[in-house]
């Protein structure tokens, strides 16, 4: 062996290792986020929107409430709002997690057994093109006014984007890595364990990004049509709107919106942890 060549390789190895930084360093990213150019534009937009809202609300007191009216309502009836938000959150958590799990598991089955995709996918599509608003009342008839129809509606809404995205992710494996596995006579299980499962995660997270806001839509819609229990932010919206109680209507809407923001932020946090290895080019952030 020639020593000059190996040392040349080693030098090259050392230089190229320091040459490229990996996974955006947290502190650098934080610094970038703290720079005013990154947060100021959004803040300005919000301030302008709030100002326009306020002007419109003052000019049209019977159309929308002013921001301070909404705020006062939130403070005054904090307990009520909290209780209703808990109900809706429960629906979202239970419904979404079962929908996510069902979607992912069915995607695995379909990815591994093509015949299952051919057998089940048409049915799934038929169910999914049926408007959820139309299904919800029917579910109430079937399952009563309790939580069950709300869980089901939420799960249904989440299920489809999860299924479709997970399936795409499980299928989109690096063909060459797959070739390497095949020459090693890897079993289907080994290919799933080492390649497909983690490899599907960028798509799974893209699916979650669509599914989680939809979960809130699902829960709210279910409460609209199955308001029997008269609990949850969705119910609150319908009841308050029927009474033309603008502050309560909009306070409930604001809380639904807040839930969405919290969910998406949590998702972004988890994504950062799980998908640090993905450059996000394939499916976007």
């Amino acid at each position, binding site marked *: 062996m020639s020593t000059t060549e190996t040392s040349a390789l080693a030098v090259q*190895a050392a230089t190229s290792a320091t040459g490229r930084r990996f996974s955006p360093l947290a502190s650098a990213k934080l610094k970038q986020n703290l720079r005013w150019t990154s947060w100021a534009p959004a803040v300005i937009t919000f301030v302008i929107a709030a100002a326009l809202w306020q002007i419109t609300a003052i000019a049209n007191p019977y159309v929308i409430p002013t921001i301070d009216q909404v705020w006062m309502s939130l403070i005054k009836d904090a307990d009520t709002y909290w209780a209703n938000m808990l109900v809706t959150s429960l629906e979202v958590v239970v419904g979404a997690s079962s929908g996510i799990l069902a979607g992912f598991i069915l995607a695995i089955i379909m990815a591994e057994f093509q015949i299952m995709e051919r057998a089940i996918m048409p049915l799934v599509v038929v169910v999914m093109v049926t408007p959820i608003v139309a299904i919800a009342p029917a579910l109430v008839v079937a399952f009563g006014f309790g939580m069950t129809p709300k869980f089901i509606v939420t799960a249904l809404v989440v299920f489809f984007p999860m299924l479709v995205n997970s399936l795409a992710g499980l299928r989109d494996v690096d063909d060459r890595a797959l070739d390497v596995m095949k020459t090693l*006579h890897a079993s289907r299980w080994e290919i799933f364990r080492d390649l497909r499962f983690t490899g599907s995660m960028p798509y799974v997270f893209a699916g979650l990004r669509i599914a989680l806001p939809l979960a809130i839509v699902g829960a709210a819609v279910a409460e609209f049509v199955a308001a029997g229990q008269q609990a949850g932010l969705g119910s609150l919206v319908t009841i308050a709107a029927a009474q033309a109680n603008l502050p309560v209507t909009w306070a409930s809407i604001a809380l639904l919106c807040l839930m969405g923001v919290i969910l998406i932020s949590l998702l972004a946090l988890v994504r950062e942890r799980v998908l640090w290895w993905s450059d996000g080019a394939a499916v976007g952030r």
Partner: protein
Amino acid sequence: METAQPHAGVYIEDVSKSFGPEGARTLVLNHVSLSIKMGEFVSVIGPSGCGKSTLLKTVAGLIEADSGTVKVDGMTVKAATKNKMIGLVPQSPALLPWRTVLDNVRLPMTVNPKANANRNLRDPREILESFGLGAALDKYPGQLSGGMQQRVAIARAFVFDPSVLLMDEPFSALDEMNRDAQRLGLLDFWQSNRKAVMFVTHSVPEAIMLSDRIVVMGAHPGHIAEIIDVPLPRPRTIDVYATDEFRDLEGRVRETLREVMGQKSA
């Protein structure tokens, strides 16, 4: 052809393969025969569409030949993959980005573990160190340069001690300077770990530098046009490029390639 041990290494006899729908099939490999002895380094070169990658994939068990025989150490390709006797270095490194370099190289040991018995498994650390990647064991592929990634892929193919190595243009994505370093590194390592190597390339100097024999393939349909011996002494260093023998060989290979390409346009 060999006589003493007819099936050691890679043995390809009269292999044909066509692709496409019934009625509009294109013949990609037309009665191809080739054998690679244990410890022999054979390059396959030719214009695109000559079926060199198809031939490699047939030996790797990724494509099944329509007719003919492919044997690896006297076994069918299927039995050979079952026994993990084939190491594949694909065109791109195809490393798993969520695994460290070390865990990427460990992958072949954890897959199909039944075949691990009675073989000389290498220490992944040791092999990576000898590839100049000792400092990169706990790094992730995304932190490495293209050349380093390809070396990890080669280490992954060597680590489970296969008897045959199949490399599909492994250095084609690298720049020329880097490619030279990688070739020498590979040669250096192979010198002390002699496997039967089938190396698909489209670089003439690369083929000469690395091989004992160069298989020149022609297209439409894919066939072996000529097999050229490379009698340059081993171990080889960069100095080989400057020798007259090298230049003569380069002229010969290019001449054959020109003939092959000429047939195509005729």
